């Protein structure tokens, strides 16, 4: 589903040059739930941004669904993000001036040929999936952190993307709420076959996914199936 070949990312500022990623090679097959761990500043977000076509690698090749992404126009990249990718962020990135329902509908506004009624229906279905059917008319500021993240997940899945990229989705939540979010993601992966790449600091969460990749200083240091994987497949 996602393949990274010899990915190099260097941030160049006036005074310093930061190597955020160095020689990263990864293949994430369809339907896999992968977690990424590593200390702060080791390049996890940069990795997700490159997979999510929000940032370009300095060197190397990104392939989504077997399609090498290079020299794509901004419009084409936006189109791929809209069709194939869903994002979940640590700080939710909800638009506070829009209701829960309007926030969830957002990705479909950038998709042509979906009627307003269909968009509404899909948004309600997505909210049902994350258990927020009763909060559609609320505004983000009226919700708890866990509820906000559920809205963000509903927004990520309304377009039925093949891949969801989650950057520390439980980072701002207590363990109970974190657990809820994790279960929703696990469900998505198991029932809908969505490929998920999740950055986390929580070892327990990571162990619930199939595969765990560890980063240090911009480089992969380990990549292994988890116990959950063995358990799951038995």
């Amino acid at each position, binding site marked *: 589903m996602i393949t990274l070949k010899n990915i190099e990312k260097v941030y160049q500022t006036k005074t310093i040059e930061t190597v955020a990623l160095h020689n990263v090679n990864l293949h994430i097959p369809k339907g896999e739930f992968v977690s990424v761990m590593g200390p702060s500043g080791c390049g996890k977000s940069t990795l997700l*941004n490159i997979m999510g076509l*929000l940032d370009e690698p300095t060197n190397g090749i990104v392939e989504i669904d077997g399609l090498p992404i290079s020299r794509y126009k901004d419009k084409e990249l936006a189109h791929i*993000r809209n*069709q194939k990718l869903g994002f979940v962020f640590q700080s939710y990135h909800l*638009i506070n001036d829009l209701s829960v329902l309007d926030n969830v509908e957002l990705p479909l506004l950038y998709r042509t040929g979906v009627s307003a009624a269909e968009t509404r229906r899909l948004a309600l279905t997505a909210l049902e999936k994350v258990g927020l059917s009763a909060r559609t008319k609320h505004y983000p500021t009226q919700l708890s952190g866990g509820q906000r993240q559920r809205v963000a997940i509903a927004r990520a899945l309304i377009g039925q993307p093949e891949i969801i990229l989650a950057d520390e989705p439980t980072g701002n939540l207590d363990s109970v709420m974190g657990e809820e979010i994790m279960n929703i993601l696990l469900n998505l992966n198991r029932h809908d076959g969505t490929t998920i790449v999740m950055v986390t600091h929580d070892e327990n969460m990571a162990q619930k996914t199939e595969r765990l990749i560890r980063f240090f200083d911009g480089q992969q240091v380990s990549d292994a199936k988890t116990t959950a994987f063995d358990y799951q497949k038995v």
Partner: protein
Amino acid sequence: MIRHLFKLIWNRKRSNFLLITEIFFCFLVLFAVLSLIVYNVRNYNKPLGFEHENVWLLSMRPDTDSTALNRQTLEQIMQRAKGFQEIESMALTNSNAPFAFSQMNNQLSYGEKMIMANEYLVQDDFDKVMRMQVSHGRWFGQQDNASHHYPIVINRAMQQQLFEGEDPLGKLLHRNDSSNYQVVGVVEHYRPSSEYTAEEPGFFNRIQLPRDEKDFYGELLIKVKPGMGVEFEEKMVKELSGIGKGWTMEVTTLEKMRQNKAKVAKVPMIALTIICVFLILNVALGLFGVLWYNISRRNSEIGLRRAVGAASSQVYRQFIGEVLVLATFGLVLGVAFAIQFPLLQVFEVESTVYLIALGIAIGLIYLLAIGCAFYPSRQAAAIHPAMALHEE
């Protein structure tokens, strides 16, 4: 997407309130100034109803209080003036000559109907001096000497208000002192006040020196042959002053008087336009500032939209669109207010004037909005999504 923008602006109405109010006031001021300009320009483009080229106005002030004596001297002066080769025609007039700063009106009635109309007292040759075109009936003259009524020529504006479909010729009008006037002719237009003034109902009444014994008229309109200048003016004044010894005589051209009148209309128009431009600049700077400031506040939103599938150009269009929607809110309020002027007929101005001003003002506000949004929107579109979404 448009619905989405309206929703977004509507939900942000609290923070957008100031901008909407600014646009609202900006629109109203623009509308007011444009109404004035459109009104003036439309009047300017209408016919005056006379030709003022080569017409001079000789103003004479006698030095005695004896009307009889003054009339005698005036008679001699006019006799002498008629002798000049350079003069084509001339006519005495009341002080409300074309482009003069003087008005006179009278209330006349026809049957049940009353009208307040400008009265222009002129001698028979006025129509030749001013090249008046009588479209219906005739101008007055010697043939009216025997009439029991005052023969008058009215303008179309007066005819429409007083007679509507009826033929006005021969109709009798009354003044409250029970004098009777009889309509003998109609002219299409007569707008002597200024090129920028709307046509008002008015009528010409006849100066008949032999009959009006107690009256003295010191304003003489003179049509000179083309090409006459200061030289002839000096010669004429010198000779006429020889007859009216001690009289003050001043000559001015109607062209000069026209320019003076135009200035009176233009100065407030220009002053208001300048004030308006400053106001708009102010609003524009404010609008630009707020939009600019909003971009940094909306970093997260911009990044998010890019992530869920908005291309950079769509972010650009969204920001422009938002400002247009914002302007639309201000305009809806503004138009609701402005439309009262033609609806309630607050001033006696044609509705068309308001509608044109309304259209131009709306266009200008949208242009202003786009102009202010252009650069901030481009800036918003240029924000790198990964940067915008970056979190520590």
